[in-house]
């Protein structure tokens, strides 16, 4: 691995070492061909940078977090007048989420190396030094928290930082020690609801007697908490051999029969049904009620199938259904769930 230089902070090592990086040699086919080759090299560099950034920041997880923040903000009664503040909050939250992902990859680089699904992450692959990653962690965390504070006030920013702490300081190390890590990690996954609720002045609304929006925020947080059990148990089942090889104590490693993982998935999916329906309370929307019922019932169905079969196909279905049902639920909440 190339030793990290000061340049490595800004540019991944793979890009610095990319083919065609040598300077001062004329192209044999002339300047036009040389320009074309330069453009191709630039494309390759950009693609490499984007791939590394994507693996580092995990934008799909960040998008899910942002969708949760928006839904909580909307259901609490945050309006279009706050769009600029909301946008600032979302960018800030995305930066904090990216920071937690980078910090997680720094802490787990030894175990990531042992699992094919994570072996291509930039720190493990040697395309980003630990120092550079640490600097990126601090910059995105501080920048994100500052932006969240300026846009939505310190309580929302504090909730974002609390999520970061829980994910990085508690959940990540816990994965090596106990299968209870999912129960702790799921709290970090549900906390973005608090960010949206606090940004939309949830406490002030509650003090003014608006109990319905507080109930809904609590329900959304509980939905997010429960939703993660089947979702992560499906992942833990699909990658159980890799987790075992890396020494990570997922439930499917401790109990290879999958019975306990399937049981937790089933219990959480069943409990999620009524809690999802509560999302329709502030709006009184029949459409949201029925959409939430369908999403939760389908999720239950996939959890039952996984509990019955406990194979890769049913785990894959459960994983897909988990994403689809949450997306459907959050979309329905935003479209139909504005409080009366």
């Amino acid at each position, binding site marked *: 691995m190339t030793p990290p230089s000061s340049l490595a902070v800004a540019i991944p090592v793979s890009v610095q070492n990319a083919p065609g990086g040598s300077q001062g040699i004329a192209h044999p086919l002339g300047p036009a061909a040389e320009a074309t080759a330069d453009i191709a090299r630039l494309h390759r560099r950009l693609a490499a940078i984007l791939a590394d950034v994507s693996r580092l920041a995990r934008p799909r997880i960040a998008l899910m977090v942002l969708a949760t923040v928006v839904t909580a903000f909307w259901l609490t009664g945050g309006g279009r007048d706050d769009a600029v503040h909301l946008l600032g909050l979302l960018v800030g939250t995305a930066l904090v989420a990216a920071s937690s992902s980078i910090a997680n990859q720094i802490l787990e680089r030894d175990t990531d190396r042992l699992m094919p699904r994570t072996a291509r992450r930039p720190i493990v692959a040697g395309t980003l030094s630990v120092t550079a990653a640490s600097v990126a962690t601090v910059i995105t965390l501080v920048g994100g928290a500052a932006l969240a504070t300026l846009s939505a006030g310190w309580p929302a920013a504090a909730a974002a930082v609390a999520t970061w702490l829980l994910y990085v300081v508690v959940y990540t190390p816990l994965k090596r020690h106990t299968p209870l890590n999912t129960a702790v990690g799921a709290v970090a996954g549900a906390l973005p609801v608090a960010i949206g609720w606090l940004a939309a002045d949830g406490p002030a609304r509650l003090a003014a007697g608006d*109990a*319905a929006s507080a*109930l809904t925020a609590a329900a959304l947080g509980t939905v997010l908490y429960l939703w993660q059990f089947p979702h992560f148990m499906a992942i833990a089942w699909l990658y159980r051999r890799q987790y075992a090889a890396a020494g990570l104590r997922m439930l499917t490693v401790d109990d290879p029969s999958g*019975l*306990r993982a*399937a*049981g*937790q998935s*089933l*219990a959480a999916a*069943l*409990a999620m*049904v*009524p*809690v999802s*329906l*509560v999302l*329709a*309370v502030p709006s*009184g929307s*029949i459409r949201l*009620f*029925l959409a939430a*019922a*369908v999403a939760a*019932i389908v999720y239950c*169905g996939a959890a*039952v199938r996984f*509990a*019955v*079969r*406990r194979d890769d196909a049913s785990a894959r279905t459960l994983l897909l259904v988990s994403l689809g049902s949450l997306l459907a639920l959050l979309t329905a909440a935003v479209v139909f769930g504005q409080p009366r």
Partner: protein
Amino acid sequence: METAGPNWTFPLACLLVGATAVLLTFGALVTTYDAAMAVPDWPATYGHNMFLFPFAEWFYGPWDLFLEHGHRLLGATVGLITLALAAVVWLKEPQATVRALVVAAVVLVLVQGGLGGARVLLDDKTVAKVHACTGPLFFAVAVAIAALTARRRVGQASRASTIDPMSLRVAVALMVAAYVQLVAGAQLRHLDAAAVTPGTFRWLVALHLAGAAAVAGLSWLAVSLCGPEVSPVARRWAAVIAALVICQLALGAGAWVVSWGVPSGLLPASWMPAEPIAARSPRGAAVVTGHVVLGMMILGGSVALAISAGLFAKPAARAIA
């Protein structure tokens, strides 16, 4: 793995199923008689600790107070039975599925209690709908626990000798359809006169009718598929469900007439905010409440059918088919 000594799981689960059935009937009556706000505070009853409210005042008091306070007492009883069952299962039960279901039951009973309180404190129709949809789900879980522990008690007699994937699929689909039908029915039971347009009402009625057709079709399929090769318990459940569905269709028609009069077409032209539910005749109230309760019994039966048809059977047993 079998545990030594007497196993109280099955009797306790049966007690839970029975108590829940009575609780759900009381709950359905509370809605029929619009008695939910008969006690305006929660968790207290008119300032008294719920359990210390004077017996004579409750038992010989107004009908709506009898229903609402009785519903609360039954709810507390079901909660206690659930906790006792959870303790026994945690100590004695080896089946991971039963353990998971009992955890779900504890969570659901706590959520349901909170929803009941929120329904009173917020006086909100949507909370009432959520409460109405959670009750049957809890009932289904209780039936599943009883069916799974019964299966082990009676050994091979209730197991499917071979699991027919098609009858299992139909049983599971029936279970889902029966629950969806209860969710759709709850929308009609807890209509908000101020917020629902005639168009939405017609759409909800159409959904409920389509659900009825689906449940009827699936129960007929279940009877046809549960031949001699399927367990006798499954065959019996399929027959019971088919009989219940026939009664339910008749009660549904009756509930329609009681609620909206004799239909002049497939769907009512519009929804007229009719006389208050409390003013219904005892016979009308019995028809409407019976329709709800029977719906829950069909759900419970379909859960028992699905389990006796092989749901949650061990993978080794599944491989036989």
